[in-house]
Protein backbone atom coordinates (compact mmCIF):
# COMPACT_ATOMS: atom_id res chain seq x y z
CA UNK A 1 0.00 0.00 0.00
CA UNK A 2 2.73 2.42 1.06
CA UNK A 3 4.79 1.45 -1.97
CA UNK A 4 1.80 2.09 -4.24
CA UNK A 5 1.33 5.48 -2.57
CA UNK A 6 4.98 6.42 -3.13
CA UNK A 7 4.69 5.24 -6.75
CA UNK A 8 1.59 7.41 -7.13
CA UNK A 9 3.46 10.44 -5.76
CA UNK A 10 6.38 9.81 -8.12
CA UNK A 11 3.93 9.54 -11.05
CA UNK A 12 2.37 12.85 -9.95
CA UNK A 13 5.83 14.43 -9.92
CA UNK A 14 6.49 12.80 -13.30
CA UNK A 15 3.34 14.45 -14.64
CA UNK A 16 4.67 17.85 -13.58
CA UNK A 17 8.00 17.16 -15.30
CA UNK A 18 6.15 15.92 -18.41
CA UNK A 19 4.02 19.08 -18.54
CA UNK A 20 7.12 21.27 -18.19
CA UNK A 21 8.82 19.25 -20.95
CA UNK A 22 5.71 19.53 -23.12
CA UNK A 23 5.55 23.31 -22.72
CA UNK A 24 9.28 23.52 -23.47
CA UNK A 25 9.08 21.31 -26.58
CA UNK A 26 6.01 23.19 -27.82
CA UNK A 27 8.02 26.41 -27.52
CA UNK A 28 11.24 25.27 -29.19
CA UNK A 29 9.75 23.07 -31.96
CA UNK A 30 9.29 25.93 -34.47
CA UNK A 31 12.74 27.29 -33.54
CA UNK A 32 14.32 23.92 -34.38
CA UNK A 33 12.49 23.09 -37.60
CA UNK A 34 10.94 26.36 -38.73
CA UNK A 35 11.77 28.66 -41.62
CA UNK A 36 12.71 32.21 -40.66
CA UNK A 37 10.48 35.00 -41.94
CA UNK A 38 9.98 38.69 -41.14
CA UNK A 39 6.64 40.32 -40.44
CA UNK A 40 5.71 43.95 -39.90
CA UNK A 41 4.49 44.63 -36.35
CA UNK A 42 3.67 47.36 -33.79
CA UNK A 43 4.74 46.81 -30.16
CA UNK A 44 3.01 48.07 -27.00
CA UNK A 45 4.18 47.36 -23.44
CA UNK A 46 2.00 45.71 -20.84
CA UNK A 47 2.94 43.55 -17.82
CA UNK A 48 1.87 39.99 -17.21
CA UNK A 49 1.23 39.03 -13.57
CA UNK A 50 3.18 35.80 -13.86
CA UNK A 51 5.63 36.22 -16.71
CA UNK A 52 6.85 39.76 -16.15
CA UNK A 53 7.14 42.61 -18.66
CA UNK A 54 6.65 42.07 -22.33
CA UNK A 55 6.09 43.98 -25.52
CA UNK A 56 2.78 43.00 -27.04
CA UNK A 57 3.01 42.78 -30.79
CA UNK A 58 0.12 43.65 -33.03
CA UNK A 59 -0.07 42.54 -36.69
CA UNK A 60 -2.34 43.63 -39.50
CA UNK A 61 -3.61 40.08 -39.79
CA UNK A 62 -4.43 39.79 -36.04
CA UNK A 63 -7.96 41.02 -36.65
CA UNK A 64 -10.45 39.10 -38.73
CA UNK A 65 -13.13 41.20 -40.31
CA UNK A 66 -16.73 40.02 -40.70
CA UNK A 67 -16.08 36.35 -40.10
CA UNK A 68 -18.32 33.62 -38.73
CA UNK A 69 -15.46 32.16 -36.72
CA UNK A 70 -15.98 31.83 -32.98
CA UNK A 71 -13.53 31.99 -30.08
CA UNK A 72 -11.48 28.79 -30.00
CA UNK A 73 -11.78 28.08 -33.75
CA UNK A 74 -8.52 27.31 -35.59
CA UNK A 75 -7.51 29.67 -38.41
CA UNK A 76 -4.84 29.22 -41.08
CA UNK A 77 -3.17 32.28 -42.54
CA UNK A 78 -1.26 31.71 -45.82
CA UNK A 79 1.93 33.79 -45.94
CA UNK A 80 3.13 35.57 -49.05
CA UNK A 81 6.57 37.06 -49.51
CA UNK A 82 6.64 40.58 -50.94
CA UNK A 83 8.64 40.74 -54.14
CA UNK A 84 10.25 44.12 -53.42
CA UNK A 85 11.21 43.66 -49.78
CA UNK A 86 12.24 41.05 -47.28
CA UNK A 87 8.93 41.18 -45.45
CA UNK A 88 6.18 38.58 -45.53
CA UNK A 89 2.52 39.44 -45.44
CA UNK A 90 -0.56 37.53 -44.40
CA UNK A 91 -3.04 36.46 -47.09
CA UNK A 92 -6.70 35.59 -46.68
CA UNK A 93 -7.30 33.61 -43.49
CA UNK A 94 -9.09 30.30 -43.96
CA UNK A 95 -10.59 27.55 -41.84
CA UNK A 96 -8.85 24.68 -43.68
CA UNK A 97 -5.13 23.90 -43.70
CA UNK A 98 -3.41 25.09 -46.91
CA UNK A 99 -1.87 22.27 -48.93
CA UNK A 100 1.18 24.23 -50.06
CA UNK A 101 3.25 27.17 -49.00
CA UNK A 102 4.11 28.67 -45.65
CA UNK A 103 1.25 29.51 -43.31
CA UNK A 104 0.53 30.45 -39.71
CA UNK A 105 -1.80 28.39 -37.51
CA UNK A 106 -3.77 30.57 -35.13
CA UNK A 107 -6.79 30.49 -32.89
CA UNK A 108 -9.65 32.94 -32.66
CA UNK A 109 -9.35 34.30 -29.16
CA UNK A 110 -11.21 37.53 -28.83
CA UNK A 111 -14.78 38.60 -28.77
CA UNK A 112 -16.18 40.25 -31.86
CA UNK A 113 -15.67 43.98 -31.77
CA UNK A 114 -15.81 46.56 -34.56
CA UNK A 115 -17.11 43.78 -36.78
CA UNK A 116 -14.01 41.63 -36.33
CA UNK A 117 -12.36 38.93 -34.18
CA UNK A 118 -8.90 38.77 -32.68
CA UNK A 119 -6.70 35.88 -33.75
CA UNK A 120 -3.57 34.82 -31.88
CA UNK A 121 -0.75 33.02 -33.66
CA UNK A 122 1.59 32.62 -30.69
CA UNK A 123 3.89 35.44 -31.79
CA UNK A 124 2.20 38.33 -30.00
CA UNK A 125 4.49 38.66 -26.96
CA UNK A 126 8.18 39.48 -26.64
CA UNK A 127 9.25 39.06 -23.01
CA UNK A 128 12.10 41.28 -21.87
CA UNK A 129 13.43 42.91 -18.69
CA UNK A 130 11.41 45.99 -17.75
CA UNK A 131 13.91 48.58 -19.06
CA UNK A 132 14.45 46.71 -22.29
CA UNK A 133 10.71 46.28 -22.86
CA UNK A 134 10.17 50.02 -22.35
CA UNK A 135 13.14 50.88 -24.59
CA UNK A 136 11.78 48.57 -27.26
CA UNK A 137 8.43 50.26 -27.03
CA UNK A 138 10.05 53.69 -27.56
CA UNK A 139 12.44 52.51 -30.26
CA UNK A 140 9.86 50.58 -32.23
CA UNK A 141 6.86 52.80 -31.57
CA UNK A 142 5.85 53.44 -35.16
CA UNK A 143 6.71 50.23 -36.88
CA UNK A 144 9.00 47.25 -36.39
CA UNK A 145 9.79 43.87 -37.85
CA UNK A 146 9.20 40.61 -36.00
CA UNK A 147 11.63 37.82 -36.81
CA UNK A 148 9.63 34.61 -36.65
CA UNK A 149 10.33 30.95 -37.31
CA UNK A 150 7.43 29.02 -38.81
CA UNK A 151 7.25 25.22 -38.63
CA UNK A 152 5.74 23.20 -41.50
CA UNK A 153 2.55 22.65 -39.47
CA UNK A 154 2.00 26.41 -39.14
CA UNK A 155 3.17 26.69 -35.52
CA UNK A 156 5.30 29.79 -35.12
CA UNK A 157 7.83 31.06 -32.57
CA UNK A 158 9.03 34.61 -32.14
CA UNK A 159 12.81 35.02 -32.32
CA UNK A 160 13.24 38.76 -31.87
CA UNK A 161 11.97 42.17 -32.91
CA UNK A 162 13.99 44.65 -34.97
CA UNK A 163 13.54 48.23 -36.09
CA UNK A 164 12.07 48.40 -39.57
CA UNK A 165 14.88 50.57 -40.98
CA UNK A 166 17.45 47.93 -40.02
CA UNK A 167 15.48 45.37 -41.92
CA UNK A 168 15.35 47.43 -45.11
CA UNK A 169 19.06 47.91 -45.32
Amino acid at each position, binding site marked *: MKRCHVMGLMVALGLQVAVMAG*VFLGGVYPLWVGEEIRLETRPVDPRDLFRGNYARLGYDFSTLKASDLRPGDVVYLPLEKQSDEALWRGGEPQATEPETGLYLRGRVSGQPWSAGNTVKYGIEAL*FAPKEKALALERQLRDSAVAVVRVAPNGKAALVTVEAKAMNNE
Partner: protein
Amino acid sequence: MQLLGLLRRELRSECRQWVVDGDISEEQGNRILARYDTHLDDDADGSLAYKVLVTVALLFVGLAILLLVSANWEDIPRAVRMLGLIATTITLNLIGIRGHVKQGEGSGWLFLGGISYGASIMLIAQIYHLGEHFPDGLFYWALGVAPMAWLVRSRLLALLMLAVAFLWMGAQGQYTPPWAMVLFLGVAGAVALRAHSGGLLLVVIAVLVSWLNLLLGWVYGDGWGPDFEAGHLSLNMGLLALLYAFSHWAAQSEAHYLRRSGSLVGLWSLRGYLLLLLMFSFREFSEGYLHELVGLADPGLWAGLLAAMLASAWVVVRRLGSSGPRLLVMLLPFVLLGIHAFGGAETALGDVEAAAWLFVVAVNLLALLSAIVLIQEGLKRGLTQYFYSGIVLILLLALMRYLDLFGDYLGAAAMFLVAAAVLYGAARFWRRQQNQEAVSKTAAGEGQS
Protein backbone atom coordinates in the same frame (compact mmCIF):
# COMPACT_ATOMS: atom_id res chain seq x y z
CA MET B 1 -27.60 24.75 13.46
CA GLN B 2 -24.45 24.57 15.61
CA LEU B 3 -23.41 28.22 15.31
CA LEU B 4 -21.53 28.03 18.60
CA GLY B 5 -19.28 25.39 17.02
CA LEU B 6 -17.81 28.15 14.85
CA LEU B 7 -16.37 29.79 17.98
CA ARG B 8 -14.39 26.87 19.37
CA ARG B 9 -11.41 28.95 20.43
CA GLU B 10 -13.63 31.27 22.44
CA LEU B 11 -15.47 28.26 23.92
CA ARG B 12 -12.18 26.65 25.00
CA SER B 13 -10.91 29.76 26.72
CA GLU B 14 -14.28 30.34 28.44
CA CYS B 15 -14.40 26.73 29.64
CA ARG B 16 -10.82 26.90 30.94
CA GLN B 17 -11.77 30.01 32.91
CA TRP B 18 -14.87 28.31 34.34
CA VAL B 19 -12.69 25.39 35.46
CA VAL B 20 -10.14 27.76 37.05
CA ASP B 21 -12.95 29.65 38.82
CA GLY B 22 -14.36 26.35 40.13
CA ASP B 23 -17.72 26.78 38.38
CA ILE B 24 -17.38 23.42 36.64
CA SER B 25 -15.08 20.45 37.00
CA GLU B 26 -12.43 19.57 34.45
CA GLU B 27 -14.44 16.52 33.41
CA GLN B 28 -17.56 18.64 32.88
CA GLY B 29 -15.53 21.13 30.86
CA ASN B 30 -14.25 18.38 28.64
CA ARG B 31 -17.75 16.95 28.21
CA ILE B 32 -19.10 20.34 27.18
CA LEU B 33 -16.24 20.89 24.72
CA ALA B 34 -16.56 17.37 23.31
CA ARG B 35 -19.89 18.47 21.80
CA TYR B 36 -17.86 20.84 19.63
CA ASP B 37 -15.07 18.41 18.75
CA THR B 38 -12.49 19.89 21.11
CA HIS B 39 -11.23 19.56 24.72
CA LEU B 40 -9.58 21.64 27.45
CA ASP B 41 -6.03 20.54 26.56
CA ASP B 42 -6.55 21.14 22.84
CA ASP B 43 -3.46 23.09 21.72
CA ALA B 44 -4.98 23.88 18.35
CA ASP B 45 -4.67 27.63 19.07
CA GLY B 46 -0.89 27.51 19.19
CA SER B 47 -0.55 25.09 16.30
CA LEU B 48 -3.09 27.06 14.25
CA ALA B 49 -1.13 30.28 14.76
CA TYR B 50 2.05 28.39 13.76
CA LYS B 51 0.38 26.87 10.71
CA VAL B 52 -1.12 30.17 9.57
CA LEU B 53 2.19 32.03 9.94
CA VAL B 54 4.17 29.28 8.17
CA THR B 55 1.57 29.13 5.37
CA VAL B 56 1.74 32.88 4.83
CA ALA B 57 5.56 32.69 4.91
CA LEU B 58 5.49 29.91 2.29
CA LEU B 59 3.09 31.94 0.17
CA PHE B 60 5.50 34.89 0.32
CA VAL B 61 8.41 32.64 -0.70
CA GLY B 62 6.27 31.44 -3.62
CA LEU B 63 5.44 35.01 -4.65
CA ALA B 64 9.15 35.84 -4.40
CA ILE B 65 9.93 32.95 -6.79
CA LEU B 66 7.30 34.23 -9.26
CA LEU B 67 8.66 37.79 -9.06
CA LEU B 68 12.26 36.57 -9.49
CA VAL B 69 11.18 34.71 -12.63
CA SER B 70 9.23 37.74 -13.87
CA ALA B 71 12.34 39.93 -13.52
CA ASN B 72 13.63 38.25 -16.70
CA TRP B 73 17.29 37.42 -16.09
CA GLU B 74 18.42 37.78 -19.68
CA ASP B 75 22.10 37.73 -18.75
CA ILE B 76 21.84 34.16 -17.45
CA PRO B 77 21.76 31.62 -20.29
CA ARG B 78 18.33 30.19 -21.10
CA ALA B 79 19.28 26.60 -20.34
CA VAL B 80 20.72 27.51 -16.91
CA ARG B 81 17.60 29.47 -15.97
CA MET B 82 15.26 26.77 -17.12
CA LEU B 83 17.14 23.77 -15.78
CA GLY B 84 17.71 25.63 -12.49
CA LEU B 85 14.02 26.14 -11.92
CA ILE B 86 13.06 22.64 -13.08
CA ALA B 87 15.70 21.14 -10.76
CA THR B 88 14.37 23.33 -7.91
CA THR B 89 10.85 22.07 -8.62
CA ILE B 90 11.93 18.43 -8.58
CA THR B 91 14.05 18.89 -5.43
CA LEU B 92 11.30 20.67 -3.48
CA ASN B 93 8.79 18.01 -4.46
CA LEU B 94 11.17 15.17 -3.57
CA ILE B 95 11.82 16.69 -0.13
CA GLY B 96 8.05 17.05 0.31
CA ILE B 97 7.37 13.48 -0.81
CA ARG B 98 10.08 12.15 1.54
CA GLY B 99 8.64 14.11 4.46
CA HIS B 100 5.13 12.94 3.64
CA VAL B 101 6.09 9.27 3.39
CA LYS B 102 8.34 9.23 6.47
CA GLN B 103 6.52 11.52 8.91
CA GLY B 104 3.19 12.25 7.24
CA GLU B 105 4.31 15.86 6.80
CA GLY B 106 5.93 17.83 4.01
CA SER B 107 2.94 19.60 2.51
CA GLY B 108 4.81 22.91 2.98
CA TRP B 109 7.62 21.69 0.71
CA LEU B 110 5.09 20.33 -1.78
CA PHE B 111 3.29 23.68 -1.72
CA LEU B 112 6.56 25.44 -2.57
CA GLY B 113 7.22 22.75 -5.19
CA GLY B 114 3.78 23.48 -6.67
CA ILE B 115 4.57 27.19 -6.92
CA SER B 116 8.02 26.47 -8.34
CA TYR B 117 6.37 24.18 -10.91
CA GLY B 118 4.01 27.00 -11.95
CA ALA B 119 6.93 29.42 -12.10
CA SER B 120 8.81 26.97 -14.37
CA ILE B 121 5.91 26.94 -16.82
CA MET B 122 5.83 30.73 -16.78
CA LEU B 123 9.60 30.90 -17.22
CA ILE B 124 9.54 28.62 -20.25
CA ALA B 125 6.73 30.76 -21.69
CA GLN B 126 8.84 33.86 -21.01
CA ILE B 127 12.03 32.47 -22.51
CA TYR B 128 10.33 31.31 -25.70
CA HIS B 129 7.90 34.25 -25.93
CA LEU B 130 4.87 31.96 -25.70
CA GLY B 131 2.13 34.55 -25.69
CA GLU B 132 -0.41 32.61 -27.70
CA HIS B 133 -2.99 31.85 -25.07
CA PHE B 134 -1.89 32.60 -21.52
CA PRO B 135 -4.75 30.75 -19.70
CA ASP B 136 -3.16 27.51 -20.95
CA GLY B 137 -0.20 28.10 -18.60
CA LEU B 138 -2.56 28.42 -15.62
CA PHE B 139 -4.42 25.29 -16.72
CA TYR B 140 -1.22 23.22 -16.89
CA TRP B 141 -0.20 24.60 -13.51
CA ALA B 142 -3.46 23.56 -11.79
CA LEU B 143 -3.44 20.24 -13.67
CA GLY B 144 0.06 19.37 -12.40
CA VAL B 145 -0.75 20.20 -8.78
CA ALA B 146 -4.08 18.28 -8.76
CA PRO B 147 -2.76 14.67 -8.45
CA MET B 148 -0.25 15.69 -5.77
CA ALA B 149 -2.99 17.43 -3.74
CA TRP B 150 -5.24 14.40 -4.06
CA LEU B 151 -2.56 11.86 -3.11
CA VAL B 152 -1.24 13.83 -0.13
CA ARG B 153 -4.75 14.98 0.93
CA SER B 154 -3.22 18.38 1.49
CA ARG B 155 -5.60 21.27 2.06
CA LEU B 156 -2.81 23.69 1.27
CA LEU B 157 -2.07 22.11 -2.12
CA ALA B 158 -5.78 21.79 -2.89
CA LEU B 159 -6.23 25.49 -2.13
CA LEU B 160 -3.26 26.37 -4.37
CA MET B 161 -4.73 24.23 -7.16
CA LEU B 162 -8.18 25.74 -6.73
CA ALA B 163 -6.81 29.31 -6.64
CA VAL B 164 -4.87 28.77 -9.89
CA ALA B 165 -7.86 26.94 -11.44
CA PHE B 166 -10.11 29.84 -10.42
CA LEU B 167 -7.79 32.28 -12.20
CA TRP B 168 -7.81 29.98 -15.22
CA MET B 169 -11.62 29.82 -15.10
CA GLY B 170 -11.81 33.63 -15.14
CA ALA B 171 -9.31 33.94 -18.01
CA GLN B 172 -10.44 30.97 -20.12
CA GLY B 173 -14.10 31.70 -19.40
CA GLN B 174 -13.89 34.73 -21.70
CA TYR B 175 -13.08 32.48 -24.65
CA THR B 176 -14.75 29.13 -24.04
CA PRO B 177 -16.83 27.53 -21.27
CA PRO B 178 -14.28 26.26 -18.70
CA TRP B 179 -15.55 22.67 -18.55
CA ALA B 180 -12.33 21.33 -17.03
CA MET B 181 -13.21 23.08 -13.75
CA VAL B 182 -15.23 19.98 -12.94
CA LEU B 183 -11.93 18.12 -12.56
CA PHE B 184 -10.42 20.69 -10.19
CA LEU B 185 -13.63 21.03 -8.18
CA GLY B 186 -13.85 17.25 -7.94
CA VAL B 187 -10.26 16.91 -6.70
CA ALA B 188 -10.63 19.77 -4.19
CA GLY B 189 -13.97 18.35 -2.98
CA ALA B 190 -12.42 14.89 -2.55
CA VAL B 191 -9.48 16.37 -0.59
CA ALA B 192 -11.92 18.33 1.62
CA LEU B 193 -13.87 15.16 2.42
CA ARG B 194 -10.79 12.98 2.93
CA ALA B 195 -8.97 15.60 5.04
CA HIS B 196 -12.16 16.52 6.94
CA SER B 197 -11.70 20.17 6.06
CA GLY B 198 -14.78 22.33 6.46
CA GLY B 199 -12.89 25.44 5.27
CA LEU B 200 -11.83 23.83 1.99
CA LEU B 201 -15.36 22.52 1.47
CA LEU B 202 -16.68 26.07 1.76
CA VAL B 203 -14.16 27.34 -0.81
CA VAL B 204 -15.18 24.50 -3.15
CA ILE B 205 -18.85 25.45 -2.77
CA ALA B 206 -18.09 29.14 -3.46
CA VAL B 207 -16.05 28.29 -6.59
CA LEU B 208 -18.75 25.83 -7.72
CA VAL B 209 -21.42 28.55 -7.49
CA SER B 210 -19.19 30.95 -9.52
CA TRP B 211 -18.56 28.23 -12.11
CA LEU B 212 -22.27 27.45 -12.52
CA ASN B 213 -22.97 31.15 -13.00
CA LEU B 214 -20.26 31.37 -15.64
CA LEU B 215 -21.61 28.33 -17.47
CA LEU B 216 -25.08 29.87 -17.51
CA GLY B 217 -23.42 33.02 -18.86
CA TRP B 218 -22.18 30.93 -21.78
CA VAL B 219 -25.67 29.60 -22.44
CA TYR B 220 -26.84 33.21 -22.71
CA GLY B 221 -23.75 34.24 -24.64
CA ASP B 222 -24.68 32.22 -27.72
CA GLY B 223 -21.15 30.97 -28.32
CA TRP B 224 -19.38 34.35 -28.48
CA GLY B 225 -18.65 34.79 -24.82
CA PRO B 226 -20.50 34.78 -21.49
CA ASP B 227 -23.38 37.17 -20.94
CA PHE B 228 -24.82 37.95 -17.54
CA GLU B 229 -28.59 38.29 -17.66
CA ALA B 230 -31.55 38.60 -15.32
CA GLY B 231 -31.98 34.81 -15.42
CA HIS B 232 -28.81 34.51 -13.31
CA LEU B 233 -30.85 35.75 -10.37
CA SER B 234 -33.29 32.88 -10.91
CA LEU B 235 -30.39 30.41 -10.93
CA ASN B 236 -28.99 31.88 -7.73
CA MET B 237 -32.39 31.68 -6.01
CA GLY B 238 -32.41 27.96 -6.75
CA LEU B 239 -28.79 27.59 -5.62
CA LEU B 240 -29.56 29.40 -2.37
CA ALA B 241 -32.35 26.92 -1.68
CA LEU B 242 -29.97 24.08 -2.43
CA LEU B 243 -27.35 25.56 -0.08
CA TYR B 244 -30.01 25.90 2.60
CA ALA B 245 -30.88 22.22 2.23
CA PHE B 246 -27.19 21.26 2.28
CA SER B 247 -26.51 23.33 5.38
CA HIS B 248 -29.33 21.65 7.33
CA TRP B 249 -28.36 18.22 6.10
CA ALA B 250 -24.73 18.85 7.11
CA ALA B 251 -25.84 20.21 10.49
CA GLN B 252 -27.33 16.79 11.29
CA SER B 253 -24.16 14.93 10.33
CA GLU B 254 -22.05 12.95 12.77
CA ALA B 255 -18.89 14.57 11.40
CA HIS B 256 -17.94 17.75 13.22
CA TYR B 257 -16.31 19.36 10.18
CA LEU B 258 -19.52 18.87 8.18
CA ARG B 259 -21.57 20.38 11.00
CA ARG B 260 -19.26 23.40 11.12
CA SER B 261 -19.33 23.95 7.35
CA GLY B 262 -23.11 23.40 7.43
CA SER B 263 -23.43 26.20 10.00
CA LEU B 264 -21.39 28.56 7.87
CA VAL B 265 -23.18 27.68 4.62
CA GLY B 266 -26.48 28.14 6.47
CA LEU B 267 -25.45 31.60 7.62
CA TRP B 268 -24.28 32.65 4.17
CA SER B 269 -27.34 31.23 2.42
CA LEU B 270 -29.47 33.22 4.87
CA ARG B 271 -27.48 36.36 4.08
CA GLY B 272 -27.81 35.71 0.34
CA TYR B 273 -31.57 35.24 0.74
CA LEU B 274 -31.89 38.52 2.67
CA LEU B 275 -29.77 40.34 0.09
CA LEU B 276 -31.97 39.05 -2.75
CA LEU B 277 -35.09 40.10 -0.84
CA LEU B 278 -33.71 43.60 -0.30
CA MET B 279 -32.71 43.94 -3.96
CA PHE B 280 -36.11 42.78 -5.20
CA SER B 281 -37.91 45.07 -2.78
CA PHE B 282 -36.97 48.00 -5.07
CA ARG B 283 -39.52 48.59 -7.84
CA GLU B 284 -36.95 49.66 -10.46
CA PHE B 285 -34.84 46.55 -9.84
CA SER B 286 -37.79 44.17 -9.98
CA GLU B 287 -39.22 45.86 -13.05
CA GLY B 288 -35.87 45.62 -14.85
CA TYR B 289 -35.56 41.98 -13.84
CA LEU B 290 -39.06 41.10 -15.07
CA HIS B 291 -38.50 43.04 -18.32
CA GLU B 292 -35.29 41.19 -19.11
CA LEU B 293 -36.54 37.66 -18.49
CA VAL B 294 -37.05 35.53 -21.58
CA GLY B 295 -40.19 33.90 -20.21
CA LEU B 296 -40.56 30.17 -19.73
CA ALA B 297 -37.85 29.52 -22.32
CA ASP B 298 -35.27 31.31 -20.13
CA PRO B 299 -32.27 29.01 -19.43
CA GLY B 300 -31.87 30.71 -16.03
CA LEU B 301 -35.36 29.54 -15.11
CA TRP B 302 -34.61 25.91 -15.93
CA ALA B 303 -31.26 25.95 -14.15
CA GLY B 304 -32.84 27.63 -11.10
CA LEU B 305 -35.82 25.29 -11.29
CA LEU B 306 -33.58 22.23 -11.30
CA ALA B 307 -31.70 23.46 -8.22
CA ALA B 308 -34.93 24.50 -6.46
CA MET B 309 -36.61 21.15 -7.15
CA LEU B 310 -33.60 19.24 -5.86
CA ALA B 311 -33.64 21.44 -2.75
CA SER B 312 -37.40 20.90 -2.30
CA ALA B 313 -37.04 17.14 -2.58
CA TRP B 314 -34.12 17.21 -0.15
CA VAL B 315 -35.88 19.26 2.55
CA VAL B 316 -39.13 17.27 2.22
CA VAL B 317 -37.59 13.78 2.23
CA ARG B 318 -35.14 14.51 5.07
CA ARG B 319 -37.45 17.00 6.86
CA LEU B 320 -34.67 19.58 7.02
CA GLY B 321 -34.94 22.94 8.80
CA SER B 322 -37.94 24.51 10.48
CA SER B 323 -41.37 24.66 8.88
CA GLY B 324 -41.30 28.29 7.62
CA PRO B 325 -38.08 28.15 5.57
CA ARG B 326 -38.95 24.61 4.46
CA LEU B 327 -42.26 25.88 3.05
CA LEU B 328 -40.40 28.70 1.27
CA VAL B 329 -38.01 26.21 -0.33
CA MET B 330 -40.92 23.98 -1.36
CA LEU B 331 -42.74 26.94 -2.93
CA LEU B 332 -39.68 28.27 -4.75
CA PRO B 333 -40.14 26.21 -7.96
CA PHE B 334 -43.68 27.59 -8.31
CA VAL B 335 -42.50 31.12 -7.50
CA LEU B 336 -39.82 30.88 -10.18
CA LEU B 337 -42.32 29.58 -12.74
CA GLY B 338 -44.72 32.37 -11.82
CA ILE B 339 -42.06 35.08 -12.06
CA HIS B 340 -40.91 33.90 -15.47
CA ALA B 341 -44.47 33.48 -16.74
CA PHE B 342 -45.19 37.10 -15.82
CA GLY B 343 -41.86 38.56 -16.77
CA GLY B 344 -41.34 36.82 -20.05
CA ALA B 345 -44.90 37.06 -21.26
CA GLU B 346 -44.89 40.81 -21.65
CA THR B 347 -46.71 40.40 -24.92
CA ALA B 348 -48.99 37.54 -23.85
CA LEU B 349 -50.05 38.71 -20.41
CA GLY B 350 -49.76 42.41 -21.03
CA ASP B 351 -48.41 44.96 -18.62
CA VAL B 352 -45.09 44.09 -16.95
CA GLU B 353 -45.27 47.25 -14.86
CA ALA B 354 -48.44 46.05 -13.14
CA ALA B 355 -46.86 42.64 -12.59
CA ALA B 356 -43.75 44.32 -11.15
CA TRP B 357 -45.91 46.35 -8.77
CA LEU B 358 -47.62 43.22 -7.46
CA PHE B 359 -44.28 41.44 -7.29
CA VAL B 360 -42.65 44.21 -5.24
CA VAL B 361 -45.56 44.32 -2.78
CA ALA B 362 -45.31 40.53 -2.38
CA VAL B 363 -41.52 40.71 -1.88
CA ASN B 364 -41.86 43.45 0.74
CA LEU B 365 -44.46 41.41 2.62
CA LEU B 366 -42.28 38.32 2.34
CA ALA B 367 -39.34 40.32 3.69
CA LEU B 368 -41.49 41.47 6.59
CA LEU B 369 -42.63 37.92 7.33
CA SER B 370 -39.04 36.67 7.03
CA ALA B 371 -37.90 39.29 9.52
CA ILE B 372 -40.63 38.25 11.97
CA VAL B 373 -39.77 34.55 11.60
CA LEU B 374 -36.07 35.33 12.07
CA ILE B 375 -36.68 37.34 15.23
CA GLN B 376 -38.96 34.63 16.65
CA GLU B 377 -36.61 31.79 15.71
CA GLY B 378 -33.68 33.74 17.10
CA LEU B 379 -35.41 34.19 20.46
CA LYS B 380 -36.96 30.73 20.60
CA ARG B 381 -33.79 28.83 19.72
CA GLY B 382 -31.33 31.27 21.26
CA LEU B 383 -29.68 32.12 17.93
CA THR B 384 -28.36 35.67 18.13
CA GLN B 385 -27.47 35.76 14.41
CA TYR B 386 -31.10 35.06 13.43
CA PHE B 387 -32.49 37.59 15.90
CA TYR B 388 -30.25 40.44 14.76
CA SER B 389 -30.64 39.51 11.08
CA GLY B 390 -34.39 39.90 11.52
CA ILE B 391 -34.02 43.23 13.34
CA VAL B 392 -31.58 44.61 10.73
CA LEU B 393 -33.83 43.42 7.88
CA ILE B 394 -36.91 45.09 9.31
CA LEU B 395 -35.08 48.36 9.99
CA LEU B 396 -33.46 48.40 6.53
CA LEU B 397 -36.79 47.68 4.92
CA ALA B 398 -38.44 50.54 6.79
CA LEU B 399 -35.61 52.94 5.97
CA MET B 400 -35.58 52.04 2.27
CA ARG B 401 -39.34 52.29 1.86
CA TYR B 402 -39.33 55.62 3.70
CA LEU B 403 -36.68 56.94 1.31
CA ASP B 404 -37.92 55.55 -2.01
CA LEU B 405 -41.60 56.30 -1.34
CA PHE B 406 -42.89 53.21 -3.10
CA GLY B 407 -46.40 54.07 -4.38
CA ASP B 408 -45.85 57.74 -3.59
CA TYR B 409 -46.70 59.24 -0.15
CA LEU B 410 -50.10 57.59 0.23
CA GLY B 411 -48.92 54.21 -1.08
CA ALA B 412 -45.88 54.21 1.20
CA ALA B 413 -48.03 55.27 4.16
CA ALA B 414 -50.48 52.45 3.42
CA MET B 415 -47.62 49.99 3.20
CA PHE B 416 -46.22 51.14 6.54
CA LEU B 417 -49.68 50.72 8.10
CA VAL B 418 -50.00 47.21 6.67
CA ALA B 419 -46.49 46.41 7.92
CA ALA B 420 -47.35 47.77 11.37
CA ALA B 421 -50.53 45.66 11.44
CA VAL B 422 -48.59 42.52 10.45
CA LEU B 423 -45.94 43.20 13.10
CA TYR B 424 -48.54 43.87 15.77
CA GLY B 425 -50.45 40.73 14.80
CA ALA B 426 -47.26 38.67 14.97
CA ALA B 427 -46.35 40.11 18.37
CA ARG B 428 -49.84 39.31 19.73
CA PHE B 429 -49.74 35.84 18.29
CA TRP B 430 -46.36 35.16 19.85
CA ARG B 431 -47.38 36.52 23.20
CA ARG B 432 -50.50 34.33 23.23
CA GLN B 433 -48.37 31.32 22.38
CA GLN B 434 -45.97 32.12 25.23
CA ASN B 435 -48.88 32.53 27.66
CA GLN B 436 -50.30 29.18 26.56
CA GLU B 437 -46.90 27.57 27.06
CA ALA B 438 -46.62 29.10 30.55
CA VAL B 439 -50.13 27.89 31.45
CA SER B 440 -49.42 24.36 30.25
CA LYS B 441 -46.11 24.33 32.18
CA THR B 442 -47.86 25.45 35.37
CA ALA B 443 -50.57 22.84 34.85
CA ALA B 444 -47.92 20.16 34.35
CA GLY B 445 -46.11 21.31 37.52
CA GLU B 446 -49.30 21.18 39.59
CA GLY B 447 -50.09 17.75 38.20
CA GLN B 448 -46.68 16.47 39.31
CA SER B 449 -46.97 17.91 42.84
